[in-house]
């Protein structure tokens, strides 16, 4: 199991770097969706042999939501808004990747030094990768111009937090897990609607135009 989880973590790590370097919106949506699917599988790997119906159902729902519903919603937003399909970042791709590598180094350094409760860890990579994914999400939110990218950044952030949750909170109550998934779903749904309105109001979804309200 250890090696399997390790390789899943490496895939997520690479997907973060891809997210930072991709210039096309559709590719970014695919990357985040792939992350979501892989993370959906994670609870199945880490439950140490005892795969209950509950774990399978949660995994299935999470995969359906993050791997299928979200990409569909976001792709629809691109089509309806007929936006240019490039990311148009404030911070260039090369710089993004360099900063990403730096963030990765910091995550590895910090993640391997945190005092963790021994029994919970399944792989030495979980904490660094969770931290790195969280940082990537926050960076994408801040450094990209399009509203859609900010939603993708939010989803990456959520994914990072989810990795941490799967690794350490094995027995989170069903109600809470369902509630969290429902909230994320509604959040993306509402953000999708807002993107539609931003496009109708401004004929594009660049958030740097949202700058009337300031002191």
């Amino acid at each position, binding site marked *: 199991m250890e090696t399997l989880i390790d390789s899943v973590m490496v895939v997520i790590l690479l997907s973060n770097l891809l997210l930072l370097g991709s210039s096309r919106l559709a590719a970014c949506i695919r990357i985040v969706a792939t992350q979501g699917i892989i993370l959906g599988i994670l609870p199945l790997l880490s439950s140490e042999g005892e795969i209950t119906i509950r774990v399978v159902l949660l995994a299935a729902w999470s995969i359906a939501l993050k791997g299928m519903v979200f990409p569909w919603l976001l792709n629809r937003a691109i089509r309806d808004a007929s936006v240019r399909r490039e990311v148009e970042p404030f911070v260039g791709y090369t710089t993004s990747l360099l900063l990403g590598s730096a963030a990765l180094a910091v995550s590895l350094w910090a993640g391997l030094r945190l*005092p963790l409760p021994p029994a919970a860890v399944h792989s030495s990579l979980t904490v660094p990768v969770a931290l790195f994914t969280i940082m990537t999400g926050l960076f994408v939110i801040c450094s990209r111009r399009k509203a859609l990218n900010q939603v993708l950044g939010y989803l990456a*952030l959520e994914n990072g937090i989810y990795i*941490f949750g799967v690794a350490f909170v094995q027995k989170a109550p069903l109600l809470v897990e369902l509630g969290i998934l429902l909230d994320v779903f509604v*959040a993306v749904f*509402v953000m999708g609607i807002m993107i539609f309105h*931003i496009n109708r*109001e401004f004929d594009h979804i660049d958030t740097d135009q949202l700058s009337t*309200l300031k*002191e």
Partner: protein
Amino acid sequence: MITALIILPTIAGLLALIIRPNAPRRALLLVTATAHAGLTAFSWISGASPALSGWLMLDGPGILFLGITSVLFLAASVYAVGYLSHEEKGKRSDFEEGVGFINAPEKVFTGALLFFLATMTLVAASQHFGLLWVAVEATTLASAPLIYFHRHHRSLEATWKYLLICSVGIALALLGNFFLAVAAAAHDGSSTSLVLSDLLRQGPHFNIPWLRAAFLFLLVGYGTKMGLAPMHTWLPDAHSEAPSVVSALLSGALLNCAFLGILRAQQVLGAAGQGAFGRELLLVFGLLSMAVAAVFILSQADYKRMLAYSSVEHMGILSLGIGLGGSGTFGSLLHAVNHSLTKAMLFLVAGNIVTAFRTKQSGEISGMLRVLPVSGGLWLMGFLAITGSPPFGPFLSEFTILKAAADTGNGMAAVIYLSLLALIFIGMMTAALRMTQGLPEGTTGEARRTEGVLSIASPLALGILVLVLGLYVPPPLRDVVREAARVVGG
């Protein structure tokens, strides 16, 4: 009882989305608000039994914040009925920039309003940290459509900022929840549930570094939603662009809900013997929020934004009160009541002013006492109250916090607190006096002289409450605030 309190507005919200004619939908809003207030009053007096195996329970802080929410919602829904019936239909131009816009459908507005009540009730009743998180995030999602009621680019910008900044903030609070679970896990790997009473029983057996990290993330996460500086950037935009009746609820009820999240975290810290760590942070964030608010209030020309920054200030005062501990905890919780009532009243009056004068610039308004006697009088009284002048409620609670600062030997904090209050008093009273005194001039003279019963009843009732609370705190309220302060500890 608790389940009924949550399910009632949810069902009413769903109904509101279906009902097509306006009149029955507005009646539904009023009936639901009244029923919710009645049920809340009943729980306040005779208690409510826990539900969902202890996950939902109304302890001291819970019933206190539920009470505030319910009273404000009742006042807001009476006001909303008048507001909605006076809104012009169809496309019209905005008075600030002349851009054309339409309203969101009224049934969406009413539905979201009722869902908003349901989610805030869930926040007040949650005893499980995970459920609390779900509820707080749900309040953001239910209230976003409310801010985007007038569909123009400014409210769109405000809604987007609100949605994104609060969602990211609250995501960090989720990480805080996970850290809390790690902190609570025993060394043999067995985990503890995140139900508040279980965590409190855990007492000193927490993993302290993880617990501190958890508190930091919860503070930053819920602090974003509460509007503590420097995470407050969404707040002035959302509060100034939302319809006034929504601003009243956002400022008076929603900010408190986020504050409750921080109080829960502080409770756990206290049980683990780390209360001082949390109090220190709350003290710093409190004073910082007051300072940031003071700077922006002094140079503020838009009176709705001024009220919004005043909310940042008062969230700072709440945080400061908890940070001081001792009688400051009592003062802070009492101040939550006073601030909510006063601020909701002021936002409702601001709605009347916008309707009558069609401007948000305080410099363009004068002679309000002559044009709108009731609203003008309430406006002046509200500004006196919110800046902490006697004999109104906020004076009493702000004084209690000042006394706590002196008692606990925080002389420096007391000095900063007083000077910031003085600065804010000057900034806000200058605007209020300019608006109310003098003769109506220019555009002001042409103002529509409309003060309908529905637009005055709610602010007037809230104003009377603020005055009464300044003269005497009724024993049932005092007992609940005391009980809440005991639960929060410090």
